[in-house]
């Protein structure tokens, strides 16, 4: 039995739960929204045990052999400061516990956090794997930005944190408001013209798809073309290493392929990838790999065997 922890308001979480159940995997679902709103939590680190209770339904950790966790901090959406504090405290406790336990978790919430800060994230991962990355400049200084822009053959700009922003191609009129960056830093990157690639890695399996789009940021439009693509050995090796190094069994890793040189440029690795579209187009290969990973129980941590169920309190 697997415990699935996430929120049913999250389409990716629902997609994964449906996929697990369609493959006859027995699952209990712990909705963190309900847990934070009206549940109880008891996590014991010394004997590695836990129980959660929502509306008289008790989830006993000792009954589960694996976990699918898509733990998102939803506290910012709370309707009151008190609820925000409660949701945040539950979230913090849960992420520590899920990173400590002795059963396989896909994905443990504590590990590489650097995706929050995009430039350092790109630099750290690209240089560790001998990958190329787009030339970049993070600044709140208009002169520095202008100097960087002048050196590049086309520039895109976007936010530097994990908060979703769209990448946009810098247009001449943008330079007229460049002084605004003194109030909020901006990440500029040299434009890499060519298709995007998303690689999903589950354990030791990698699934890649090429995305051809008329937009700089393919997420902003419909009508993109998607094709499967072979992954060059240096890229595949690095992706598999990244999963091992970060002890994060499931990653979505983004690249751009420069259309003239055919060189791959690393953009970012995401440990909470929204992968359902890629999964459907691949014939559910990614969710099958997730199911198989959870069945294999490979990543033992502290080593105790458990059984599971969801019983009324």
């Amino acid at each position, binding site marked *: 039995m697997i415990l699935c922890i996430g929120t049913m308001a999250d389409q990716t979480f629902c997609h994964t739960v449906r996929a697990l159940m369609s493959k006859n995997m027995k699952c209990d679902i712990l909705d963190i929204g309900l847990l934070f709103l009206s549940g*109880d*939590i*008891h*996590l*014991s*680190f*010394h004997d590695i045990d836990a129980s959660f209770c929502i509306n008289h339904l008790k989830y006993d950790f000792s009954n589960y052999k694996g976990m699918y966790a898509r733990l998102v901090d939803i506290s*910012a959406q709370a309707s009151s400061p*008190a609820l925000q*504090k*409660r949701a*945040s*405290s*539950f979230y*913090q*406790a849960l992420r*520590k*516990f899920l*990173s*400590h336990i002795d059963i396989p978790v896909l994905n443990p919430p*504590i*590990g*590489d*956090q*650097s995706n*929050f*800060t*995009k*430039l*350092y*994230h*790109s*630099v*750290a991962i*690209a*240089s560790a794997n001998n990958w*190329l*990355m*787009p*030339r*970049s*400049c*993070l*600044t*709140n*200084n208009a002169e*520095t*930005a202008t100097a*960087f822009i002048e050196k590049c053959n086309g520039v895109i700009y976007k*936010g*530097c*944190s*994990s*908060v979703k922003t769209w990448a946009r191609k810098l247009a001449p009129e943008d330079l007229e408001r460049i002084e605004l960056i*003194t*109030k*909020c*830093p901006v990440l500029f990157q*040299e434009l890499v013209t060519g298709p995007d690639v998303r690689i999903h890695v589950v354990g030791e399996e990698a699934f890649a798809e090429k995305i051809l789009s008329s937009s700089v940021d393919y997420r902003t439009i419909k009508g993109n073309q998607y094709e499967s693509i072979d992954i060059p050995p240096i890229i595949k090796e690095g992706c598999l290493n990244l999963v091992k190094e970060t002890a994060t069994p499931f990653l979505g890793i983004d690249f751009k392929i420069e259309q003239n040189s055919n060189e791959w*440029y690393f953009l970012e690795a995401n440990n909470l990838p929204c992968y359902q579209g890629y999964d459907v187009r691949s014939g559910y290969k990614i969710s099958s790999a997730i199911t198989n990973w959870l069945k294999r129980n490979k990543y033992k941590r502290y080593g105790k065997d458990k059984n599971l169920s969801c019983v009324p309190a």
Partner: protein
Amino acid sequence: MVLILARKDDFTANMLKDHFKNLNIPCVLSNQMNKFQFGLTADCYGETWLSLQYGENTISSIINRGMATDEDTFNNSETTAAWWSVMASFKGPVINRPSRLGFLPFVESNVITKQLNYLQPARIVYSNTAAELAFEDDPLLTCNIHSAYNNKYLGHLVADSCLNDDEAYKFTGFNLDNTHSFLIAGDDHYCLSHPEGITSPEFEPVLTDIKTELQKYNANFYYLVLEDTEQGYCLTHTSPFPSYELYKHIADQVEHSLYKYLLS
């Protein structure tokens, strides 16, 4: 110039700033990015160049005390992310340098415990209900309470502790008689229960091992609570956010250790 990256109301950061000012060391305490000018560039091989200016002054070393804020705004996220990249890429010395593992080097005690084969702490429970039940069977244990929300120490668990079930707390049980607290400051360490901060020789090898582990996480201003039991050592608590109150009796030494590190 030394940058102490901290909130204005961080008392410990303010005491550090006063110490540096008394020594005529240029120092600025701020986390307001718009008071600084910075540019961090990277080439396609991941090599980086950074400039960080406060007015006419170039920042030469940094003490990271975190960006803790309750504001959840876009600007706050972007600023935090920018400081993270800047400090992680900074070529000079940084106390508690951010890494891929976090903005502040939060190293859970159980992580070090596992690495060094120490005993698991006697009791660590996160709960929002009736946690005291977990401790009532062992009257020898003292139980500390921290907020799971912001990791703040809230006090000892007593019969009439005013806890409600509105949030989760961290309850840590330990035997007070066997427990010792230490502070890592730069390359030095201090025993906080000793009036002059001197560590007894029996703890030196343990602290050296723990310091080596913490260095992997760039953690060099760190509070540790160690329990010395008959069965072995047990790391009960760690924090990358030591408070001045913990070390005020040896503040000059601690502040000198931090400054010595910043000069290295």
